[in-house]
């Protein structure tokens, strides 16, 4: 009689991660199909519709690309912190505060010409995101307070802040009493590359590329890698852990804030608490699936964007719950993590142990 045993590979298989990701995708589609059939929805139709409405036709590419932008930037934000072993769980809050800061600039200078105003708003978003990460950064660097808790909790604060602005100081006077923030100046809208795909796609790719280059080539990036290796190695090399922790969380927040600015000027017309749409959290999954490598983030973000956009369409056209999309996203992660085991372990069939006693 044989039994199967997992044995650790001394060296992980090369190229295991892309395979694991594809496996995760296939696994998710299969399990998702079973779930849909069980609950009485036509899985094939649903998948067909999801494909058509995300990547299957040129009309819908724009929506998917635009969706991938904040996912990729949030993923980048998470991966920056992870280079040093830090978890920025609160990219969501930094996105929101970034958008809030951009809105403030829009309110202060409503008459500036479009390009100038957009630039100012995006800079404000970057600063806003960094500011939202400043507290957690200082607390972590100086007192050792877990950044996981602080960044996550500040997300709630950002949501409440926006709710307050909606109902109080920034309430739209022409909003028929609805608690809405006044719409941003109409000229502060990102131009389109083609169809409705906005320039944010290029900006996101540029930011990711610049970041990857900077981390690889700069003294700062080198120190970051050493500090990420171990606290003691950093001390040995004379690298100040405190300054690195603060710097990396500020940068992570800045990138997330930038995503907020892009959302406000790209796809939204006004600030609200839904503008971040869970991108900060999805970004954690994107970063994890990309193994924290900036180069892999755009691809993973695009795949996730497609699942999200496709998932929304099935509700309107087929009456299937949009939770299908959420379930699929989770299944992709499970499948990919499960499959990644096989790049680190191999399966061996063994004879049953001969009993000795």
């Amino acid at each position, binding site marked *: 009689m044989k039994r199967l045993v997992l044995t650790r590979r001394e060296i992980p298989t090369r190229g295991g991660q892309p395979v694991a990701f594809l496996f995760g995708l296939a696994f998710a589609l299969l399990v998702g199909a079973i779930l849909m059939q069980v609950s009485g929805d036509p899985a094939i139709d649903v998948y067909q519709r999801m494909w058509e409405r995300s990547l299957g036709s040129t009309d819908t590419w724009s929506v998917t690309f635009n969706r991938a932008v904040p996912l990729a930037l949030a993923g980048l934000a998470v991966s920056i912190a992870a280079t040093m072993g830090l978890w920025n769980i609160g990219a969501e809050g930094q996105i929101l505060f970034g958008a809030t800061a951009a809105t403030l600039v829009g309110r202060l200078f409503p008459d500036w010409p479009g390009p100038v105003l957009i630039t100012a708003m995006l800079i404000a978003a970057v600063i806003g995101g960094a500011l939202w990460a400043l507290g957690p950064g200082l607390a972590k660097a100086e007192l050792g307070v877990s950044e996981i808790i602080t960044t996550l909790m500040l997300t709630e604060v950002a949501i409440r802040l926006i709710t307050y602005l909606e109902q109080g100081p920034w309430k739209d006077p022409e909003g028929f009493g609805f608690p809405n923030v006044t719409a941003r100046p109409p000229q502060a809208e990102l131009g389109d590359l083609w169809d409705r795909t906005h320039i944010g796609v290029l900006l996101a790719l540029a930011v990711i590329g610049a970041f990857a280059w900077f981390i690889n080539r700069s*003294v700062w990036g080198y120190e970051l890698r050493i500090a990420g290796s171990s606290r003691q190695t950093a001390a040995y*090399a004379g690298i100040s852990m405190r300054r690195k922790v603060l710097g990396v969380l500020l940068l992570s927040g800045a990138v997330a804030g930038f995503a907020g600015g892009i959302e406000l000027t790209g796809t939204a017309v006004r600030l609200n608490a839904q503008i971040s749409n869970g991108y900060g959290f999805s970004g954690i999954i994107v970063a994890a699936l990309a193994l924290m490598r900036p180069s892999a983030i755009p691809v993973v973000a695009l795949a996730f964007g497609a699942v999200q956009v496709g998932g929304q369409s099935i509700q309107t056209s087929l009456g299937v719950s949009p939770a299908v999309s959420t379930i699929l996203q989770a299944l992709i992660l499970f499948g990919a993590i499960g499959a990644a085991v096989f790049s680190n372990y191999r399966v061996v069939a063994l004879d049953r142990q*001969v009993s000795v006693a």
Partner: protein
Amino acid sequence: MTTPAVELDGIWKRFPGVIANSGANLTVRPGTVHAVLGENGAGKTTLMNCLAGVYRPDEGAIRIDGREVRFSSPADAIEAGVGMVHQEFRLVPTFTVAQNVVLGAAPGIVNRTRIDAEVAALAERFGFRAEPERPVWQLSMGERQRVEILKALWRDARILILDEPTAVLTPQEAQELGAVLRRMVAEGRSVIFISHKLDEVTAFCDEATVLRGGSTVAASVEVASVDAAELARLMVGDVDAPPVNRRDTAAGDIVLSVRDLRAIDTRGVTALDGVSLDVRSGEILGIAGVAGNGQRALTDAIAGLQRTVAGTVEIAGTDITSAPPRARHRAGLAYVPEDRLGVGLAPKLPITENAIMREYRALRRGPLLSWSTARTFCDGLVRRFEVKVGRVEAPMASLSGGNLQRLLLGRELSGEPRVVVASQPTRGLDVAGVRAIQQLLVAQRDQGTAVLMVSEDLDELLALADRIVVMVEGRIVGEFDARTTSRAEIGEAMIGSRRADA
């Protein structure tokens, strides 16, 4: 002839790029202590891990009491009566001795008083001193080892493997261990004793099997009938190791001066209790002591990685007591830490990035690093210190232990240091690696550098050092002239005050 307790027949075990065992054989008679001898890297530990179910051999057969077995986990091996005490102990520090002993093999509901009594009875049967209710973190390394042995006996191991058990023991503790082993074999159990120290083998063991380069070169030699020199020749092969050069240079001025240094470790326990020492230019000061008596705290404190509460450290007259690590390095300090991969290197990063860890600030081009200069610097180190590397872009951890240490020491020496502090610089290296590192340190001494060297290997200290001081419980308890002292004298000092409060 009786059926052997253990038979390993033609064991092969390959790892990527390394063949650890190539057709190794071992036969152990029941009721004997059997030594497995060999240099570092001879394949002793791998072979034993195959027997203990940690690894699965690629080829070959394992027979226990004449019956063939295949283990897929240590649990299988334990079930078959094979227990192993690894070099790194696997204990839960916050649990008591008794809790650790029964962990995973407790009889139903754990009744603490009953377990304590049973563990105490077991210990007594084999002549251990054991306090079942003490938490493990309070124990010395020697005491922890006894807990590991008790764990195996609790699971009724009839074959006990001890991997270099005396490495963490004082000579006196080693004697006690020998007595425990005799009691075990008297009950018909078998003990496999891995070692590379001949004197222990002749003292404790009945038979010896010698491994070299992954295969058996002498099987089941009767220890009583064989000459120690013959065993040594079998172990190292025909190339005999030339003794490391010692030159009678006159020591110069004091370069490193430590005065009344005190430090408290992370658990709040006193790690350094008023250490004072001087190292002069052109001398090697050796620090001997059983592991965990403050050696690491001392070297870390000198390097600026351990906070001190009192005392001073000076390099060439400059007070560096509160200077950050980088300022100490600039003052002329080179440091080879005990934990190479966790402190001195970044194992997952490329070799180049590890090579420039001390010098990268000189490679700045604005905010960027000049990678071409970094590469040249790394290539220079690799050539000068004869580091065997494939690609310098490969992760540091892909290097073998000896090459890793050559690069680390080379990087430290390339800054023309005035003081070299080296902690366990040759531990775990193969013969060639040990010799290369020792020669580099001696060459530094001959150039007039002050060298402070911590080692648990007394023979190494006796061969290399000019003076030897002994540390016990964060204090220096004795100083010896390496030329005139004996192992026994130093061993006596190493257990010094520890014996007094036992």
